[in-house]
């Protein structure tokens, strides 16, 4: 059996550790001089504390904020949880209404669902347009005096659409002005920038957000590291209690090597952001155009231009995503799908459904996310391998779904006695 070298196109899932990041981390993993607990008063402790402070300074200079506004967490998910649970609970006396969107990451959505189900909050999940963007006027209409937190992602992890965060900031500012509320009063805006990091300017002062999430493992940093920017004056209620580290907002002995790695990774991502984006956009567009050109019955998910430089997401009709992934894997290509068959929960992608596509399109969605290792030759290789795979699987498939998008998600399940009610849209191959 041939063993093809891997063409990794799943950078939105996670990224490899940059060797420069690894080098920066190594002293804090290996040497006898750097294992100290940053809380300790002796020299070893001070060395570790100094490293933490430097990391905080590095990150704050990139985000355009103060070092004290940077909280280190254990993941992007934890940062999202701390933002949502922490702010909602801390400001509960001011109101119990939260706003988010239907395309958010589960780290935000499930935290909000928890608050709704268990803690008496009400949640408005704003709808998105066909590209996955929340209309600023919808946000304006949803704000109430009871609203304490708005959480809207900077760029979507599945379809790559970039949301106009600055416009949401303006909507909330205008609303506050109108209602005589100051910057340290609710509602606050949190944005999950896990996918945006490395591609979009994350200057929080320019942007005007109150809280922002970054994940180390998406920017060629170590896994198990995250940042939550919390604007000075905001006091989220902790979700982890203990020794009072991270200014009491997140207890637990600091992951010093991880934090040093995260800071290094963010610095590199920041320095290379413009050049890397400029390099990837043409590759992304070459892949999109190539697939649309060579494979019939394909739709692009997400915005054609307002999208991350590294994201390609297409629905290849009549075939199922996991089957495509298995074939691609055989050719050494790593990609992702929004199909139910590939998720632990067996639910199809909520994002593909939220942009108004039927279930069939979600099961058929394939995501390629490019990264630093991606070359033009990789793109051409995918474009060479994908069409025959689609052809084989379409030969196996008995369904043919119309492109017009009128197929509505069927409520009929799979062991139905009769035939699906929308079967006018399906022509069995006879």
């Amino acid at each position: 059996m041939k063993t093809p070298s891997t063409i990794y196109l799943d950078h939105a899932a996670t990224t490899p550790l940059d060797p420069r990041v690894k080098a920066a981390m190594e002293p804090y993993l290996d040497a006898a001089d750097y294992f100290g607990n940053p809380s300790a008063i002796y020299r070893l402790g001070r060395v570790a504390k100094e490293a933490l402070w430097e990391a905080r300074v590095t990150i704050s200079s990139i985000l355009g904020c103060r070092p004290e506004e940077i909280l280190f967490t254990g993941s992007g998910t934890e940062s999202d949880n701390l933002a949502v649970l922490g702010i909602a609970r801390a400001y509960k006396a001011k109101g119990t209404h939260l706003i988010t969107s239907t395309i958010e990451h589960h780290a935000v959505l499930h935290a909000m669902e928890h608050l709704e189900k268990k803690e008496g909050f009400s949640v408005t999940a704003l709808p998105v347009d066909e590209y996955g963007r929340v209309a600023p006027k919808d946000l304006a209409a949803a704000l109430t005096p009871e609203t304490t937190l708005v959480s809207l992602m900077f760029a979507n992890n599945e379809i790559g659409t970039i949301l106009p965060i600055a416009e949401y900031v303006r909507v909330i500012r205008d609303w506050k002005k109108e209602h005589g509320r100051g910057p340290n009063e609710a509602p606050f805006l949190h944005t999950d920038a896990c996918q945006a990091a490395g591609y979009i300017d994350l200057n929080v002062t320019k942007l005007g957000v109150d809280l922002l999430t970054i994940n180390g493992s998406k920017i060629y940093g170590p896994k198990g590291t995250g940042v939550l920017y919390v604007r000075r004056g905001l006091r989220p209620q902790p979700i982890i209690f203990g020794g009072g580290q991270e200014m009491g907002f997140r207890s637990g002995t600091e992951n010093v090597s991880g934090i040093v790695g995260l800071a290094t990774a963010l610095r590199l991502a920041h320095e290379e952001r413009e050049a890397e984006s400029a390099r990837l956009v043409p590759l992304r567009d070459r892949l999109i155009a190539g697939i649309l050109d060579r494979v019939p019955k394909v739709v692009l998910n997400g915005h054609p231009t307002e999208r991350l430089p590294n994201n390609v997401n297409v629905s290849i009709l009549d075939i199922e995503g996991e089957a495509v992934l298995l074939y691609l894997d055989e050719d050494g290509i790593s990609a992702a799908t929004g199909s139910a068959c590939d998720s632990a929960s067996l639910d199809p992608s909520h994002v593909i459904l939220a942009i108004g596509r039927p279930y069939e399109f979600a099961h058929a969605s394939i995501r390629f996310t490019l990264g630093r290792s991606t070359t033009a030759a990789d793109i051409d290789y995918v474009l060479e391998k994908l069409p025959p795979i689609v052809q084989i699987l379409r030969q196996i498939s008995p369904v043919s779904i119309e492109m017009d998008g009128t197929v509505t998600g069927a409520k009929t399940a799979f062991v139905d006695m009769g035939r699906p009610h929308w079967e006018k849209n399906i022509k069995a191959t006879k």
Partner: protein
Amino acid sequence: MDTPLKEPNAEVVNQHTKQQWVYSDVVKDHFFHPRNLLLDAVAPGQFDAEGMVGSPACGDVMYVWIKVDKATERITEFKWKTFGCGSAIASSSMFSIMTTENDGLTLEDALKIRPQDVMLRLGGLPNRKIHCSVLIDKAFKKAVNEYFRSTGQHARIQVDGARVIDKRLNITDHDIEEAVLEGAKTLEEVQKKLKVGVGDPDAIPDIEQLIRFYSEKYYG
């Protein structure tokens, strides 16, 4: 090195090469080299019966065509097409082998094949894949019913309704439908209402499939 913990959804590891794949070697073989796949257009009268289950919305569709020897009721030809994931395609292929090998099973014997039997022949499937992807037996059942109908053997048609799921407690699919309508969404919640499958663990795959089916049907 210690043996890694085996989690239920762990990937299948080839004992000899240590290579990991999401599915067993047999599944892989049938996925990449499907047997008895229908490739050409079907001519009128080419097959005796056909059956289809599923919906692309749910992620799986199986279509089956069969040819039956009238005298012996043995299946002489079994062709299929499947929309679905790796295990859906592989289980369709395996089912076609099981029904046609050794001069073909009789309809009666073929109807006795359960998803578990297909799974066994495939060398196992990841847990979460079992209930949703082995649906080819249901498509086959429909084809057989069509065969019975077209040959005037109406008494032999098997209807899925009011099927006994838990033999110890005599609980039927209608009971499970009721439980889902009353708000139960998981096996645990249905069990709270019905105690179904507690004394009959073999019924659990069926129960879970029905919960999924009725949940999608009523709550989409």
